[in-house]
Structure formats: structure tokens, C-alpha cells
């Protein structure tokens, strides 16, 4: 048993639901107790979908348990096929139904419904949402692309895009951005799946020369299978960030047999604003700001590259909740000289953030709340997200426009440079002080502002250092977003030198010792 106050991922059947809801012509019959229909809200509320997700739940109750829940399931399948007339039926069990062992797959085969049935076996007590989505997509691709034979003459520039889903972080606009980018590069995008695809579209997957995996957690298994079975190569560079997008284009062009793009200068000019914005002197103050990054593996790794190479921030922590991608993340973290954090325990993530003392947190909805508590600026870069991260406006993360969106949304929570300077010079302004500075992150009065450093220090229990009154007062003059780091560095310095108590002198000695 595991104590959980917050979970980064839902159960695997929610992943399956995301595949069904992404596609057209697919219906999912889910053997589940009354109440599990809450998952509809994820689609109708958070994503603001205008139609019900194509899911029929058996919604059995206690009184059904004494009878035959298998019959309830079979009736639900027949009714769903009759009512919705899908091209394919997905069948599976939720965690409770898994315990009943009704075997939805076996039952559905005995039904003799007129449509192909794809049974799902999703171990709810071992696996989670993304795995469930990946597995479901793989099963669908196998079922519909399996029997096809590849045409003999396939245009080299034809490709499919695999991975975008309903409820995926910014998938809607990423697809638009990447399809546009690819067509500008002379590529011919055939099928985008699962988002917007029908079972018939999946059967056409083999008619393209190669696949592009935009979201490995969803489409990796399917792409590997297509490679093994139909010999289709795939690209899995994720085009998030300028560097990554350029790598992506180069890789795709190579695979499509196109000549490399023109020289770097023309390639860059006008395609994005991030490059210039990050170079403009106004961004100078971003240099070496400490950033903690957490999310799904794809977005976290991409964010680290952007942060360090394109914005000039310093990665002080990198992690993911997806164990499936632990290896990739560890490799990336090693490149930045930080320890990788692979955990789905948000308390552990919170502890790591406190220990890393970042000036900016890039994370999920969850890290937003941790950061809020610690009064550290934060931007959301990955699912799980809430309703505000399904915006009305065009907001890709991928490609060149994605980079522009990223520049704005990451820099926004940081205090503007001038504001930062003035705060440091004149600390006693009654309106424009630490409290006022934090107020654009969340509303509260200056009185309510606790010292961020104190919050942080209180949270780490090894805090045995003794500060003189004057030193504490001097520490307060350090801007609040680096105060935590200053405190820790000074204490570290004092401990190694055996200094006790910490005076104003020690504070400045430590400052000189560590530089910034």
C-alpha cells in the first residue's frame, strides 16, 4: 500500500480512454463500477470537449455482484455497438472490474458483434495512465495495420505523425505547428494518429515512408512495432526548442532523402523570436538563474536543453515521474551535472525542490503548487495540467512558434530586470518590496509574505546553524528569490570552517567564496 495525496498519472484505463477519445469511429466499453464515469469530466471540463467521450461504462453496483456482472458487460457491449455503430470496439476493465475477473476480451469475442473488437489487458495495480495509452495505441495499430501489406512504391517524403492525444499537453497546437513545419520542408504528412484518426486511417499507416514520434510515451511501442513488422524507420527527436527543432528538421530531411537545409543564417532568420529575444540585452539578467525541471520525460528533457542552451539558465534539478523513461532522463541529467530524480512521490519532489533552492521551477500542475508554497516563480511545462493549460489561444510547445510561446511563459513569472535591481537597492519601499514582488505570482498582502528562505530553512531539519541578529538582518537584504541559496551557502561555509555563530562577516565571506 502506498500513501498518496496526489498522483501524477491516472490509472491505465484513463490512458485507454484518451486513445478512444482521440480517435474517430472507436468506442470503448469499460467494465467499471458506478462512479468511474468521473473520467468523462477530464474531457468535457478540462479539455472542454463539446461531446461526450466515446465510452460506455457498465457502472455495476453492489447488487450486481451477486448476479452476473459478465452479463451486464455483454449487454453494455451490444447496446454500445447498436447505438454508436463504431468501426472498432475497445473493451477493457477498470481496477475494480479487474478484481472480478470477468475477462472482457473473452466475453466480447463471444458476442458476435459485427465490428472488430480490440481487447485491452491493462494491469491497474502495476501500470499507469501513459502506459495504458501507449499499450492501447499499440494494440490498435497492430490490429489495423497488422494485416496490411506495404505498397511497393512509396514516396520517400511521406510520413505519419504518431503520439498526439486528447488530454495531452498542448497536443492540439503542436500538431498544427509540426504539420505546417513539415510541409514547408517539403514533407507529405499522411496520417496523424491517434488524434483525429479512424481505424481506417491506422490501416493506411504503412503507406508512408516513415514515422515521426512526437510523444514517445504514447507512440514508442507502436512505432517500434511498425519498424519491426513493416520496416518503417522512425524519427524520435522531439522538436521542442530551437536546437531540437533544427535537429528534428535535419533528421526528417535526411530520412526523406532531401538535401540538408540552407546555411544556418537563412534557416534561422525569421523562423523564431526566441533566439533574438534571449540574445537581447534585456535577457542578460536570466544568466545562470537556477531552474528546477520536473515533468513527463519528454518535456522535462526538452526543457532542460532549452533552459541551459537557449536561455542561459542553470539547471539545478531535473526529474520525471515516468519510470519507463528513467534511463533517458538520467543521461540528460548527467549532462547538466545534476542528480536525476525519478519518482512519482510528490513529497519527494517537494523535498528535492527545497534542497535545490531554484529561482524558477518548470514543472507540472503539482510543482506549481509546491512553488507557490515556497514562493518561487513557476511555469507549467508538462501534464498533469488543469483547465488553464488548455488555452483558447494558439499555444504550441513544439517548433518555432512553440519556442516563442516557451520564451514568454517561462520568463513571465520571473521578476523583470529593473524591478529586480531596484528591489536590491532600496529594500524598504513600503509598496515595492519583497511582498509586492511576489504579488504577481499570487495575490496576498505584504504582511502575509513569509520569508522564502525561512520557509525553506524550516523545511530542512538539519538546520542547526546559529545566526547573529545582525547577520539575519543582513540576510534579509538579499533579494527573496536567492535568499534561500545565500542562507544555505553561508551555512555550508560556516560549517566547513567551523564558524559559530554566523555574523555579517561570515555572510560576505561566504558570498566571496562561492561567487554567485
Amino acid at each position: 500500500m502506498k500513501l498518496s495525496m496526489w498522483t501524477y498519472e491516472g490509472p491505465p484505463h484513463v490512458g485507454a480512454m484518451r486513445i478512444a477519445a482521440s480517435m474517430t469511429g472507436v468506442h470503448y466499453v469499460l467494465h467499471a463500477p458506478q462512479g468511474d464515469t468521473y473520467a468523462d469530466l477530464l474531457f468535457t471540463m478540462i479539455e472542454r470537449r463539446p461531446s461526450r467521450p466515446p465510452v460506455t461504462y457498465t457502472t455495476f453496483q453492489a447488487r450486481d455482484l451477486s448476479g452476473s456482472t459478465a452479463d451486464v458487460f455483454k449487454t453494455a457491449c451490444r447496446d454500445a455497438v447498436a447505438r454508436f455503430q463504431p468501426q472498432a470496439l475497445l473493451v477493457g476493465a477498470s481496477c475494480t472490474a479487474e478484481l472480478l475477473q470477468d475477462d472482457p476480451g473473452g466475453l466480447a469475442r463471444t458476442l458476435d458483434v459485427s465490428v472488430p473488437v480490440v481487447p485491452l489487458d491493462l494491469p491497474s495495480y502495476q501500470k499507469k495512465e501513459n502506459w495504458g495509452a501507449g499499450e492501447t495505441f499499440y494494440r490498435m495499430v497492430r490490429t489495423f495495420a497488422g494485416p496490411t501489406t506495404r505498397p511497393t512504391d512509396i514516396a520517400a517524403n511521406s510520413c505519419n505523425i504518431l503520439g498526439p492525444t486528447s488530454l495531452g499537453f498542448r497536443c492540439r497546437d503542436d500538431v498544427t505547428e509540426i504539420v505546417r513545419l513539415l510541409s514547408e520542408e517539403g514533407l507529405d504528412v499522411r496520417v496523424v494518429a491517434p488524434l483525429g484518426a479512424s481505424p481506417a486511417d491506422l490501416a493506411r499507416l504503412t503507406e508512408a515512408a516513415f514515422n515521426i514520434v512526437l510523444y514517445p510515451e504514447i507512440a514508442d511501442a507502436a512505432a517500434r512495432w511498425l519498424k519491426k513488422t513493416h520496416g518503417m524507420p522512425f524519427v524520435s527527436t522531439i522538436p521542442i526548442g530551437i536546437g531540437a527543432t533544427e535537429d528534428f528538421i535535419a533528421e526528417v530531411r535526411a530520412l526523406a532523402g532531401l538535401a540538408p537545409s540552407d546555411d544556418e543564417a537563412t534557416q534561422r532568420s525569421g523562423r523564431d523570436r526566441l533566439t533574438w529575444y534571449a540574445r537581447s540585452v534585456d535577457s542578460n539578467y536570466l544568466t545562470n538563474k537556477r531552474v528546477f525541471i520536473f515533468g513527463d520525460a519528454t518535456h522535462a528533457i526538452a526543457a532542460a536543453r532549452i533552459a541551459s542552451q537557449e536561455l542561459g539558465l542553470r539547471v539545478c534539478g531535473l526529474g520525471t515521474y515516468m519510470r519507463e523513461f528513467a534511463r533517458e532522463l538520467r543521461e540528460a541529467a548527467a549532462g547538466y551535472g545534476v542528480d536525476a530524480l525519478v519518482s512519482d512521490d510528490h513529497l519527494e519532489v517537494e523535498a528535492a525542490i527545497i534542497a535545490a533552492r531554484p529561482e524558477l521551477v518548470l514543472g507540472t500542475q503539482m510543482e506549481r503548487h509546491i512553488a507557490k508554497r515556497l514562493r518561487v516563480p513557476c511555469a507549467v511545462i508538462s501534464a498533469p495540467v488543469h483547465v488553464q493549460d488548455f488555452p483558447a489561444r494558439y499555444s504550441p510547445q513544439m517548433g518555432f512558434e512553440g519556442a516563442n510561446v516557451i520564451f514568454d511563459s517561462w520568463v513571465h513569472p520571473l521578476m523583470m530586470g529593473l524591478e529586480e535591481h531596484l528591489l536590491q537597492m532600496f529594500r524598504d519601499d513600503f509598496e515595492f518590496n519583497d511582498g509586492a514582488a511576489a504579488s504577481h505570482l499570487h495575490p496576498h498582502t505584504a504582511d502575509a509574505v513569509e520569508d522564502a528562505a525561512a520557509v525553506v530553512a524550516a523545511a530542512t531539519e538539519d538546520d542547526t546553524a546559529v545566526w547573529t541578529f545582525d547577520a539575519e538582518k543582513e540576510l534579509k537584504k538579499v533579494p527573496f528569490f536567492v535568499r534561500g541559496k545565500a542562507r544555505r551557502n553561508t551555512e555550508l561555509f560556516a560549517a566547513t570552517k567551523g564558524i559559530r555563530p554566523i555574523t555579517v562577516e561570515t555572510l560576505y565571506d561566504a558570498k566571496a567564496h562561492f561567487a554567485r
Partner: protein
Amino acid sequence: MNQPLPSACATTLSVTPSATIRQRGQHEVFCGLTSIIWLHRKVQDAFFLVVGSRTCAHLMQSAAGVMIFSEPRFATAIMEERDLAGMADMHDELDQVVARLLERRPDIRMLVLVGSCPSEVIKFDLTRAAGRLNAHYAPRRRVIAYSGSGIETTFTQGEDNFLAALVADQTTVPAARSAAKLVVAGCLADVVEDQFSRLFAALGLQDIVFLPGRKAIDGLTIGPDTRYVLAQPYLGATATALEARGAQRIDAISPLGGEGTTAWLGAIAHAFGVNPARLESVIAQPRKRAEQAMQHYRPWLDGKRIFLFPDSQLEPSLARYLHQELGAEIVEVGSPYLHREHIAGELALLPPGVAISEGQDVDVQIDRCRQAQPDLIVCGLGLANPFEAEGRITKWSIEFAFTPIQGFEQAGDLAELFARPLVRHRMLTGRSRHQEAAP
């Protein structure tokens, strides 16, 4: 813990508006775990620990939405493969989780173990676990258990089971004070509770206990003279538990709207022999205010045809309010469960011919609703946006569980909740639906 669905109660109904449509099919409703979202805010010394699966944890955080991080007093003990495979002793595992939790939250005085579908299907006995943990942590902390599973409970029934467990547990607490004269059962917003307290005081009533109170550990003493009244209509199991301890019910309709609140207070006053003139003088002013506040919204709802999908069991009471006080026409009242004895008064105030449905077959009910072309559909969030996308106007029903709606001072707010989508539709389209429908 595994309380049976309250089905055994008497069904002698004097007035039957029309035959009940009984539905068995897909239920588009929440499970009882959802009640924790408001219960944990109300009962400030309690922590709700769901023993369930990742699905249960996911439901809790999806339903709690943006609120989840303001240090919630609930969590899930997620069962894992090794628990089910019998490799781990579930009771030992639970003990460890509880120990870790209470260490983190030393302020918690009552731990509530909440059963879920998975824990019930594998017959994990939480009542026994609670007994054992209680013995270990008493007297500093109490541990009780109830079921919030989807297979046993629908939405607000989770609160019902919690209150029933609280009432049952009170027997172990030594009588701290003299028996309560009146128990007001059903979770109310603090502001509503305070308003009712003032009204009771003005009526000269004393020794009144609200269930749940703001502190779970406050003892509840029930004697042979204790009367109870329901402030919420979904409390079948709680009523049974109170009666098992000797309390007697005061029959009343729900305190929604001016009329509803008047009738509710009237029933209480009558039960305690309050002079009718005194009652009249106490409620005259607030009743007038309620009437005045509702006036603003009546034009929006008068004559409007309203269809209510099942959600919370509040539906018959809401329908009564909409019809009697705002002049709306009721097309269908759905309720996940009809506790006929408790809602007889509400149904009697609805005109004959109103369709009453119990349970759900959601696709069929959607067909019926589309057919009826109502002006306003009261339904859950899973249906609301899809209906809106069809050009229909909806009011999402979960809000009735999260908003102060009872009592005189909230009568206007309640009307506003129904009027708002209609007002909004007019603002965004510049037309009312009626005009739109006209050729």
C-alpha cells in the same frame, strides 16, 4: 461498513404525482468518495484516508480540482500488486500507512477510513481495521470507517454513510453533556449553520447539535427525548442510525427557498411547541427578504421547462423549489435514489404528471431529454458541455453540493444559480431561447 443501500424504508406514499421511471443502465454519477471534498473542509479535525486504487486517488484529485494543495485533509492508501497477490498483509500495510500519515499530521484527532470499490470487492474489512487502530491510538485519536465506494454509494450518499458511522460511533464516547434536544443532520455551509443557530435561539430552542459539527470529536449524546430533522434529503442511513439510538424524526421538507425554509422551521417549531405567533414574528422579516431576493430571478424561470438529471438526491427538493417558488415547469426529476418517506412532502407539492425517475440509463435519458426540449437542463459536468454544444442550456448540478443554498438568506442565491445560465445565454446571444425557437 458495507451498509446496504437504504431500500427497506416504508413506501406508503399518499400522493404519487406519476409512476416512477425505474432505470437500470449506465449511471453517469459520482461515487460517494466525492463527499470527502466538502466533508474534509467542514470537519476540521478529521482526516479522510481512502483505501482504494489509483483510480480513487485520481478521482479525488480530479474532483478537488484546484483546491487539492491547500493542505487537504484527505489522501489515498493505494493498493498495489503485492497487496492483492497476498504477498503483503493488508492490515500491516495499512497500519504503516496510518502511522506515517499521523506522524505527518499530528493535529488530526479523527481518522476516517473510507472504503472503495476495490477494497470492498476483495472484502478488506475496514471496520475491523478501524477497531484495531482505534484501540491503538485512543484516546488521543479516534478511528472510524465507512463506505464511499461507487458500488455502494452515489455522490452525497458518501456523506450519509459518514454521518451514520459518526452516530454509531458516538456510543463509545462517554456522555459529555446532557442529551441533545434537536439534531440537525446534514452538512451545511458554516454561514447557513450560523443563520439557523440564530433563528433557533430566537425561537427559544436550546441544546441543538449540528451533524456534522465543525469538530468530529465533539460528543453527540442522544436520549429518548432527542428529535432530529434532516437539513439534507439524502440521509437515509443517518436517519436509521439516529433512530437506532432513540431519536425521533421531525418530518419536514428541505429548507430551500422561502417556502421550504418556512415549512422546515415550522415543523421544528411545532415539534417543540413553539407558539405560532412567536414563529411568525421571528421569520417574518427574513422570509420577506427571501421573497424579495427571489423576485429578481423569477422572471427568468417563471414558466420555464426544466429537466433534472440524477446526481445528489437533492433533485426532488430542487424541483419543488423551482416549481413552487419560481413558477418553473418540471419536465422530469431524476434522482439516483428515492427515499420515498423522506421526500414524500416534496413530491406532494409537485403537480401531477411530473415524471419522476430513479436510477439511470444515461443514453436513454439523454434521448428523453432531447425529445422534451427543455429550457434548462440540470446535469453533471460530464453532460453539461456536450448539451451546451447542442445548443441547449444547462446548469451543472454539483454546485448545489458546494454552495450555500439552504435557508432564507440563500433563497435568492439559489434562484440565481438557476437563472445564471439563462441570463448568460441572453447576454451572449442577445436573445432568449424562446425567441430563438420562434420561427
